[in-house]
């Protein structure tokens, strides 16, 4: 057992998978440069020295190296690719969506694409182009699995499960949760450390996690918003409102079993999402819950999300853009009383 942050836990998870399986390798920008940072958020720090030739620094060419990861995966390798900021996935999305996700289907089930694509997201004082919540663009792509990790325990377990999965898996991570240290530390970071067991473990790619039990209202969130929802639940409890908090975690497929069970208990659902309200993952969950458990809903599902604007730079507006604990509490209170 040791206490680790997400960056460390991912690093160990990658190292363990690389040790276990020689077909695993890393590919991305600035991930293994001597004297460098181990990627934008230190996740691969030291791995290049440990696994010579298996941590591949690429030119700045997201479409190209993503396509290479797809091709290598088809030939039996298990690449772990990453982009420095999720926003750059737009450059790579043709290879992810048109090739990685469809190759198995259009080959009649004869091709496998066991690759992992990691991407940091979240608004963090960098302005519009290094801030977007990208998960919405991938949950509607058949053939991709999409996961978001908000604790170090999950990060390691999901990473390992993803590496071992025979399909393309996208893992979204949040810049404020990495616990990156030193020069790469983030202002506004939130503690996402966990006790990490010593042995091997995986976290399934298709299960939500109940983080706190409650009976009045179900709060659904992921990444930073899962943490904010927990903080909100604390405050709500002081008012006598017992919120159940679920970290949705698996964004595609969505775990309607776990979430549905909660909804049947509370009858009230508040979705919390970082990213503009329109067209987000919350829309899918809201629509899906109406299909799965409309009978249990005692009030309309509510979404608390960011404003429908690009991410502003100035801290005043960035903070107003993103849901915060106060907004979650207020919305949950209204919902619980409705």
């Amino acid at each position, binding site marked *: 057992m040791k206490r680790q942050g997400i960056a460390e836990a991912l690093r160990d998870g990658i190292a363990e998978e690389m040790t276990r399986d020689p*077909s695993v*390798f890393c590919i991305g920008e600035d991930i293994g440069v001597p004297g460098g940072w181990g990627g934008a958020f230190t996740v691969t720090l030291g791995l290049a020295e440990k696994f010579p*030739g*298996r941590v*591949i620094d*690429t*030119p700045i*060419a997201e*479409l*190209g*190296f*993503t*396509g*290479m*990861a*797809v*091709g*290598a*995966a*088809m*030939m*039996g*390798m298990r*690449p772990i690719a990453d982009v420095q900021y999720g926003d750059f996935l737009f450059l790579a999305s*043709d*290879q992810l969506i*048109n*090739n990685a996700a469809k*190759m*198995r*289907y*259009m*080959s*009649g*089930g*004869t*091709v*496998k*694409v*066991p690759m992992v694509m990691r991407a940091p997201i979240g608004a963090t004082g960098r302005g519009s182009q290094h801030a977007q919540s990208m998960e919405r663009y991938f949950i509607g792509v*058949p*053939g991709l*699995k999409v996961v978001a990790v908000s604790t170090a325990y999950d990060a390691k377990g999901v990473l390992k499960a993803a590496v071992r999965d*025979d*399909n393309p898996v996208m893992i979204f991570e949040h810049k404020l949760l990495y616990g990156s240290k030193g020069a790469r530390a983030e202002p506004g970071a939130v503690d996402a450390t966990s006790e990490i067991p010593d042995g091997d473990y995986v976290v399934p790619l298709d299960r939500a996690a109940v983080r706190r039990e409650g009976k009045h209202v179900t709060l659904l969130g992921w990444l930073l918003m899962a943490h904010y929802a927990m903080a909100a639940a604390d405050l709500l409890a002081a008012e006598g409102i017992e919120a159940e908090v679920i970290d949705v975690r698996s964004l595609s497929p969505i775990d309607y079993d776990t979430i549905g069970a909660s909804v049947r208990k509370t009858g009230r659902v508040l979705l919390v999402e970082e990213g503009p309200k329109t067209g987000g993952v919350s829309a899918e969950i809201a629509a899906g819950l109406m299909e799965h458990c409309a009978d249990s809903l005692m009030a309309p599902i509510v979404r608390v999300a960011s404003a429908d604007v690009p991410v502003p730079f100035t801290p005043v507006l960035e903070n107003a853009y993103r849901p915060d604990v106060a907004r979650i509490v207020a919305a949950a209170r209204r919902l619980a009383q409705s």
Partner: protein
Amino acid sequence: MNLPASSLPPAPAVGDASLLHRHDRDFLLGLYERLVLIREFEERVKFLFLEGTMPGTIHQCQGQEATAVGVCAALQADDFITSTFRGHGHALAKGLTVQEMLDELFGATTGCCKGKGGSMHLGNMAKGMVPGIAIVAGGIPLAAGMALAFKLQRRPQVVACFFGDGAVAEGAFHEGVNMAALWNLPVVLVCENNLYGASTRIDKVMKHPCVAARAAAYGFRGETVDGNDVLAVHAAAQRAVAECRAGQGPVLLELLTYRRTGHSRRDACHYQAKDEREAWFARDPIERFGAQLLGRSDVSAADLAAVKARVEQQIQTGVERARQAPQPTIADLTTDVFA
């Protein structure tokens, strides 16, 4: 041969006769049969499409047969190719059967992709062909990645990546080729330069329209070859494959050729100049190779006719079976999404 536009790459020298005598009869007749097979396959598919019995869309390669055949003849069975929307010729050259391809085009479960792929996505991994990538240039990074896998796995395979002249303008070309060059990956980058990307002539999209010359910018070797000379293509491909296997890849082969048929479906090619078409028709790769073969004492006109007859028979049987081949049921819709 005269190319009308002065800005185009120089015409390759006329076929090197010595190549003809380096090979034995069976090998040469084998190449000839593949060429004829592709031509007849394409003509029959066109007919079936126009008559309305075959579904989908088509992008065909009549006139370009020598590129596919010449390159694939230089590969081993366990080498790979990647292809495009225009992949029928590549597939036949890499050893896919007429039957699995026709079944696929008819949407049958016995097709090489169980009917889920279709004309633009023909492939068969067991035979070394990735399903065609119909996104222009989308196969280039993919092939570079396959080659990276071979290198990391210390396997001797190479991958030949087919793409068109039009693909050279795409960012995917640039990114994939640069990394292949950087890491000396075993990929033969085969540009089938048929002078057109869809309806657009190459000189409208490249100011300096020699594709092979692009290799130098990335620091590796490129070569322009007469793509309508199957032996020249084969020889160039053999050199390229050998370099790749020796860890000296990649190599860019620019194969000059011409599409005799529409870009897709019912396209009448009004954008191709008449004199250009005629000049290229006069250097049809199959007629030329047939004439060359007859220059050998051990090949007769009857041999060539026998090839043609055999091919026609094969295709006829294939079509009859494909028309009867089993169609999927609705339960098949949701299979094969995840491994």
